[in-house]
């Protein structure tokens, strides 16, 4: 809710929001890259209530339902929208039209997506930025071990298809 005469923007829980330039946000995250995971998780937590507000807690959530709920929460802050992909068993979140394209911001959004997905689904999950597609950021949603592995390979320039090929289900033989 924008209460412009009083100079306030608030969410539905009367928590204040601040509209800042996206470039400024990217610069800030770039200077505090070590804190990207912490800040991203905090952002995801703050968005969780808005995502939950459009979901039916009594029903089993489909990927489309979750994608819609997360898109509502992100779009209301001008952060873009999301959709999901499956690469084999690997589940990825594609962050469409994010407000920045830097690596630091991608790491922050990966942490945000993991926290948001975990909060909505009730399943703890990690996130790793594993590549880009145009202006979109692809985030792998998996265990912390798999995400760390994927993050390292992505920084070496490997494509996500190559990264996924290096992942296997537990109990499978290489």
């Amino acid at each position, binding site marked *: 809710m924008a209460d*412009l*005469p009083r100079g306030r923007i608030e969410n539905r829980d009367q928590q204040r929001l601040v509209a800042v330039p996206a470039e400024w946000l990217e610069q800030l995250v770039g200077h505090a890259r070590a804190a990207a995971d912490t800040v991203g998780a905090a952002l995801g937590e703050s968005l969780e209530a808005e995502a939950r507000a459009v979901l039916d807690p009594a029903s089993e959530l489909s990927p489309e339902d979750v994608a819609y709920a997360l898109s509502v929460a992100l779009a209301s802050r001008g952060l873009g929208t*999301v959709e*999901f992909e499956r*690469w084999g068993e690997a589940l990825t979140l594609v962050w469409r039209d994010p407000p920045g394209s830097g690596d630091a911001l991608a790491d922050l959004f990966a942490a945000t997506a993991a926290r948001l997905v975990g909060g909505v689904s009730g399943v703890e999950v990690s996130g790793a930025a594993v590549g880009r597609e145009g202006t979109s950021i692809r985030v792998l949603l998996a265990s912390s*071990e798999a995400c760390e592995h994927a993050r390292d390979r992505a920084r070496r320039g490997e494509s996500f298809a190559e990264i996924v*090929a*290096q992942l296997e*289900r537990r109990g499978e033989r290489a």
Partner: protein
Amino acid sequence: MNNAQRLARLETLLARVVERRSQPRPVRMAPALAPARTASEPIAASTHGAPKPAPIAATPPAAAPVPPPVVTPPRAPTPPSNVAAETEAPIASRASRPPPRLAVDDLPDLDLVESEAAGAKSPSLVPSGKPPADSMEAEFEIPSHAQPPRVEPPQALELSDEANAEPLEIDRAPLATATIPPPGHEPAHGSIAGSIAGAFSAAAEALEEEQAESSEPAVATPERYAGPAVPAATLARVVPFVRARARTFRELLERSLELRPRR
């Protein structure tokens, strides 16, 4: 000039006043920052820099926002009866005589025109005691042709001089008295006052609608996005590839959590 023409001219003036109100706002947001105007408030009552209203009567200016009147010369060359002997002479020549008592018929046709400057002083029939006789002579000289140019500026109504300062009396109500009814009162239908009030009311409503539109927050309406949209060529490189069936999001997430790096 008939009532319809007067009304059209007044509406033009009103539109300019509204436009002038909107000009100082540097940004479009500014209207949303202003408190909402109630529908009953006349828009001209809060117009900054607009000329103060002046009634076309020999009384002190009233609070009603009436556009300033300006005297125009008579339509016909035939002068009023009590100034018939001075048809060719300027009115200022009467300064040495007792001031005449002018009736409405004596005055030129009163017309509602826009003041040049936004903060221009409104004309008044009350004598100020300071207008120079020369200006009266120039402004009220009755030319020989039938339609002389309009008298401007509005100070032309100062019909007095220092020696003979006496207010002019108008015997009957002026033709064009624009009054805005107080909030809660219906305007007089069929009259100029009602038409002017209607014009002000319409302009106020239009302004409110504009403010309401500009203050409406943008509502995010994202589309519902479907699931996987992966190129087939890319999928061919993915091993093993498991086709997604109708599974819940939780199931898909738990399967992804079972992945680990190959050794």
